[in-house]
């Protein structure tokens, strides 16, 4: 698998699940956390990480200090690094191999994460855990028997693990179920948050479910719990999509919205990010329901992640936002119509 394009690959339960991520926060015993760290110590941590994950074993290292702001933010748009890491004043780097991406000098010394398209919690945990074993065999990880893996922020203590699944839930959202999910998930140590819309989860259709509690629960328990919940929500979303399109009249209403959105994407000359995200949500539903010929949800995801503002600014010749909107319209069309 090429390391930077997970969103171009077909994953499990792809009609509802966009991606799965598992990350582990790890620190080295003998070093202070970032605000108390000297430049020399930061350089030592980077050097140690590169020794643990050497290029000779297939690891690619990207020095974030040598990237432009757009390039750094582009990694965050693709969910390969956190937004905080992209903006961080401590210029660490990213180690990548297959599904695993390791942020060096994030809030914690190392943040190991594995990202998969579709629903793949076990695979993602397996990969990130194996990268963790490598670190454990070659460095002294900060740990004590009471609090588990020691992290900069106490919210990550214990396993240091955050497992998250990105879900496309247009039907649940339309049925106003998200607020209820929030309440129920909160009671069992999970959380759901919207990925689109201006802080309004009720309007968006893309959501992320993840664990909040990391202390006093095992990694397996967390994965198992999250897995069970995601399976239930996927089932509910599919049932509701069936109801949404029950009868010719209702189906035509959905089809009409989907095809109008597709039409706009086919003929737009200028396309702003916000509009693209809105159209993405319309046509992803259509692609999942087979309403647009030869278009599957993966291709729609590829359009979204390839046309985000910093990703375009980092990869295309477009200096102004207007130029970017023009390039976005063209690129979105190319991706959607590619053979």
């Amino acid at each position, binding site marked *: 698998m090429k390391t930077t394009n997970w969103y171009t690959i077909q994953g499990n339960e792809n009609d509802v699940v966009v991606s799965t991520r598992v990350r582990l926060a790890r620190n080295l015993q003998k070093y202070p956390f970032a605000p*108390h760290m000297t430049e020399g110590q930061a350089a030592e941590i980077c050097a140690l990480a590169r020794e643990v994950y050497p290029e000779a074993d297939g690891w690619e290292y990207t020095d974030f200090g040598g990237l432009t702001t757009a390039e750094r933010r582009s990694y965050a748009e693709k969910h390969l690094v956190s937004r905080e890491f992209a903006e961080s004043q401590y210029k660490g780097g990213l180690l990548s191999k297959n599904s695993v991406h390791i942020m060096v000098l994030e809030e914690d010394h190392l943040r190991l994460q594995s990202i998969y398209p579709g629903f793949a919690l076990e695979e993602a945990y397996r990969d990130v*855990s194996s990268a963790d074993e490598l670190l454990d065999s070659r460095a002294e990880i900060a740990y004590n028997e009471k609090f*588990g893996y020691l992290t900069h*922020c106490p919210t990550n203590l*214990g396993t240091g693990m955050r497992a998250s699944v990105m879900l496309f839930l247009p039907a649940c959202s339309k049925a106003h179920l998200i607020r209820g999910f929030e309440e129920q998930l909160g009671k069992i140590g999970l959380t759901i948050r919207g990925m689109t819309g201006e802080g309004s989860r009720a309007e968006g259709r893309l959501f992320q479910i993840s664990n909040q509690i990391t*202390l006093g629960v095992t990694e397996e328990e967390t994965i198992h719990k999250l897995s069970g919940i995601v399976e239930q929500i996927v089932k509910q979303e599919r049932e509701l999509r069936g109801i949404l399109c029950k009868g010719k009249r209702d189906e035509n209403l959905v089809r009409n919205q989907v095809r109008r959105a597709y039409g706009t994407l086919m003929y737009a000359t200028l396309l702003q990010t916000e509009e693209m995200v809105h159209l993405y949500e319309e046509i992803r539903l259509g692609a999942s329901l087979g309403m647009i010929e030869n278009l599957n949800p993966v291709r729609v995801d590829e359009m979204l992640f390839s046309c985000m503002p910093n990703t375009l600014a980092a990869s295309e010749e477009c200096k102004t936002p207007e130029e970017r909107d023009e390039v976005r319209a063209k690129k979105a069309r190319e991706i959607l119509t590619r053979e």
Partner: protein
Amino acid sequence: MLCEKCGKKEATFYYKENVNGVEKSYTLCSDCAAEMQKNGVISGTSMGADPFGQLQKLFSEDKLFGSLFNTGLKQPEARETPKCPLCGSTFAVLAKNGKVGCPGCYEVFEAELIPSIRRIHGRSTHTGKTPARFREQNERKQKIAAMEKELKDSIASENYERAAELRDQLRNLRGNDAQ
């Protein structure tokens, strides 16, 4: 995260107010929030239509999290703690930042940190994966405990030959431990 008032139920409300420059914040379960609202301690409008979103913010904003160290609820008095020998932090610095300075801080300030950690996670003891060096230590500890029990039983049953064997094996194991 547990409700800071009852300490039993999951907190789903985060309330913050600023009266004449004096800031107060509460992290509450729905029952305690309703009770405090009824008693006029907190106002209904400020609860917001989006309590969960506010709670999310609580996790992401250092300052707010820092305030959790300072709620004064069932927390032990901050001891005259020395500075952390590795990073030089004091508990006051940790409370201000809402984050610790280095891995060693968890040992130095354990007593002060435990109430906040319990409030965030609902518990304060790790279960789950451990680094290899701790796995080996744990296995050795378990082995020593089992052998000590067998040694005691062997002496009680006057099986001195087995007891001598066990005594030598234990000496070796403890020797490794000391190293």
